[in-house]
């Protein structure tokens, strides 16, 4: 008998690629041109990729186009999209209405909210609830998933959480599963009432050292115009180091859900420098990153809370999209499907294994302290 494993893969989704209300509110015109209209300014800036013919430059306001996008995501093994809540006047727009018709129990929607500066108000939170209510939503632990981006902007996290839960009750939701974007459970966010944390994005949390630490001579060269000064302004991380740093010693960070990233380059939004870039990216490593993340949540998270986030489905401007491209076809999408299948299989092979570090008869902290002490002694004697 094979026990069921409720593993859910979600992908961050940009719903602004539409001529509908969200597209209009975000400036109208051609959203694809706006996203892709950027040209590398430095030699280490990889050009943005172009949508492949499988999905093309779709308009989500066109039901058939939205249906195709959801169908491709489903076929890949993705269980839902995470849509951003865009503040427009005194309301929020998500674009969920374009996708909702294609959702059901197997494919749903979650939302990401970036709190405004300053304390959240009841009116603001009520507007948020109005925007995320009434759709086929993704559930974790029986509650609707809401990701709170940049929670450090909240002056009173516990108060905001209470406000959100109150507003959810008032809106008739079955409760909220609140996920805060934070790297480790040491900042009190879980104590404040969040249900789980989520790895921040590459620009929010540089989890490994930059690939190139240039020396003084190179700095002088750049200043003299003999080398590319952009290397000093941007942060470039090697993909292999980046993915390893995201998975190394993960349990020690607490209840943090994995964010799997294929690529990242936000140079279009940092024309004067300060961009974050991943270098030497690899679909194979990405597949293993995804499979490893699934195995990890299967082993460390309670059933119904086993979520893995892919960043992203269609953030073309950050080069992180997994949608088919003109340049690489559906290679990445195929690797995504392979990673999901592989992770699911490996997780199944480990069913029945005790969760590491949770045996009652073994004092893990004492063992770790002993090993640290021996390490120190060996270092001193070396």
């Amino acid at each position, binding site marked *: 008998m094979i026990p069921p494993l409720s593993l859910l893969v979600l992908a961050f989704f940009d719903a602004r690629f539409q001529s509908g209300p969200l597209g209009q509110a975000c400036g109208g015109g051609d959203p694809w041109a706006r996203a892709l209209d950027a040209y590398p300014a430095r030699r280490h800036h990889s050009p943005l990729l172009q949508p492949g013919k499988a999905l093309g430059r779709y308009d989500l306001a066109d039901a058939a186009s939205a249906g195709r996008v959801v169908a491709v995501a489903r076929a890949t093994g993705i269980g839902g999209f995470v849509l951003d809540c865009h503040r427009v006047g005194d309301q929020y727009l998500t674009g969920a209405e374009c996708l909702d018709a294609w959702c059901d129990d197997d494919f749903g929607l979650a939302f990401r909210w970036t709190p405004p500066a300053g304390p959240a108000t009841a009116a603001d939170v009520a507007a948020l609830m109005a925007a995320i209510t009434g759709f086929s939503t993704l559930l974790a632990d029986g509650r609707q998933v809401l990701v709170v981006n940049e929670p450090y902007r909240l002056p009173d996290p516990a108060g905001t959480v209470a406000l959100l839960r109150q507003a959810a009750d008032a809106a008739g939701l079955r409760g909220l599963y609140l996920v805060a974007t934070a790297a480790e459970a040491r900042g009190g966010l879980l104590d404040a009432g969040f249900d789980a944390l989520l790895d921040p994005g590459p620009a929010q949390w540089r989890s490994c050292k930059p690939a190139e630490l240039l020396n003084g001579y190179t700095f002088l060269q750049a200043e003299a115009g003999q080398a590319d000064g952009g290397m000093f302004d941007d942060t470039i991380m090697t993909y292999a180091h980046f993915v390893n740093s995201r998975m190394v010693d993960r349990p020690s960070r607490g209840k943090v859900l994995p964010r799997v990233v294929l690529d990242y380059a936000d140079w279009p939004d940092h024309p004067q420098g300060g961009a974050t870039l991943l270098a030497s990216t690899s679909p194979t490593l990405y597949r293993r990153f995804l499979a490893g993340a699934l195995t990890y949540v299967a082993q460390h998270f309670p059933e119904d809370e086993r979520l893995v986030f892919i960043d992203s489905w269609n953030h073309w401007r950050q080069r992180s999209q997994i949608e088919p491209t003109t340049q690489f076809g559906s290679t990445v999408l195929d690797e995504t499907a392979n990673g999901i299948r592989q992770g699911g299989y490996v997780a199944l*092979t480990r069913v029945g294994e005790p969760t590491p570090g949770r045996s009652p*008869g073994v*004092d893990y902290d004492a*063992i770790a302290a*002993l090993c640290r002490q021996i390490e120190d002694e060996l270092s001193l004697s070396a």
Partner: protein
Amino acid sequence: MLSSLAISGAGVESFDFRFSSGVLTPNDILDSATTPPGRYVWEVARRTLAACPDADAVVVANPILPIRGSRLVKLALAGGPLPCPAVLTDEGTFPIAYILPRRLLEEGLGRFLCLLSVSRSAADAQLLSRLTGGGFVPRRPTPLRAIGTLPESTPQGYVLGDNLEAWLVQCVNAVTLMRKRDDWRDLPFAAHHPGHAGDVLFFSLASRLVGDEHLAFQSQVVCRAYLDIFHDCGNRLAPIVLDIPPAPRNTDVGDGQYFIDSLAHLPPGVAEETFIVFSRYSKAYAKSPFNLIDHARFSLGDPVATFADTLYGRPPPLPHHTAASQAAPLAPGAPLKVLMQLTGGWDLKTYPAKERRVLIRALTDLGCAVTVIDLPDAAADGATVVTAGSTVALKALLADHHVFLSVDSFPLHFASQVLGHPTVAIFGCTAPGNSDAPRRAGYRLPAPALPCGPCGCLDYCPVLMIRECTNQPRPAQLVAAILDVAAEVYGAGTGVAPGLGDAA
């Protein structure tokens, strides 16, 4: 990708199969590295004909080529009515697909397709000719431009190079044997999988798991150096002993070349009465998520068609099932005796020097008695150093210790999968799913977490460019796992708690 066409009076139906990346459905076929491409021709033909009971014939694409079903239709139907049997080729002579009559499989001759060369249409046509009554088997060119030079390895995981020669040699030898012997249908099949230690163990366990209705092989070629493993693991095939050293662990001599060279050293008469199938690595095994025992089962004829059929879905019973029954009893107050194997088949498997010192000292501080196999410098940290040159010696050592800790190497698999000894497994640069044991009491696997693994490197880390793998569990994790296993198997009073209390 693997594709086929079912040919019936009603028309042509195309099928696309996949080398499974984890899901097993009727269209996902277990990705087995120890399987020659011809085995996939057999499996695809079998599944296609099962899906189309009215089909008279099946066209199966060459597994080493990435041919989609839609492309196969265009290529196969480009030249009018299809002859059957036949070999379809590119515009030259490279085989791109095989047209097989249903009766070939119905007569139980499917296993002979394992012997296809997949690179020489003339040899393959000869083989098909013998299998279908000795008539002429045409080679029909298609409009596909010449395949040209093949890469050393393919995105589907095939390692070509000298494997192409090995597949060709097995095909030519088979045709020769069929010409000489009228009773060729009744001759035995031998899997050529002579080493190394762990691989012989996996094949041996696989031979026990394949049902009689699927087992296509009767014997296995094995190096004399590993014959004790062959027997001690209960291999149900007959051994054909190879009296030459195993292939070196580096890549100086490829599996294909070793296969060809070793044929001259088979015992007298074997070549004249046995079909020898190349069963070493045709593909890169780490690309597949499946256990090598399942790889071997597929090689031997078992379709392993669902998760429930895999090693993890249906763990085999251990010969002496109680985990603790193999080990010395642990008297109250007596020290926990821990045996360690910290070196593996190649350098990168070795548990790093600094970490192993911490590990040994921590266990010693906790009151454990530590014994380390084949690592003289461990004595400086308080361990007893021993050797275990045979399965008999290893068994004796295990019987004298309560818990075994090992890197991904033969002793780990022997202890955990054959003896059922209380074991903690260390995996770093290799994927646990390829060779760990099914979950059971008395087995722990602090799983490596980094996406860089499995890297496939032998002696240096390709990320950090150092000679150690950093994807290994930390010493504290291993100490905890050892105590955890001991508590589970021998009960709470393992004799280390006082030591731990002092240290803490």
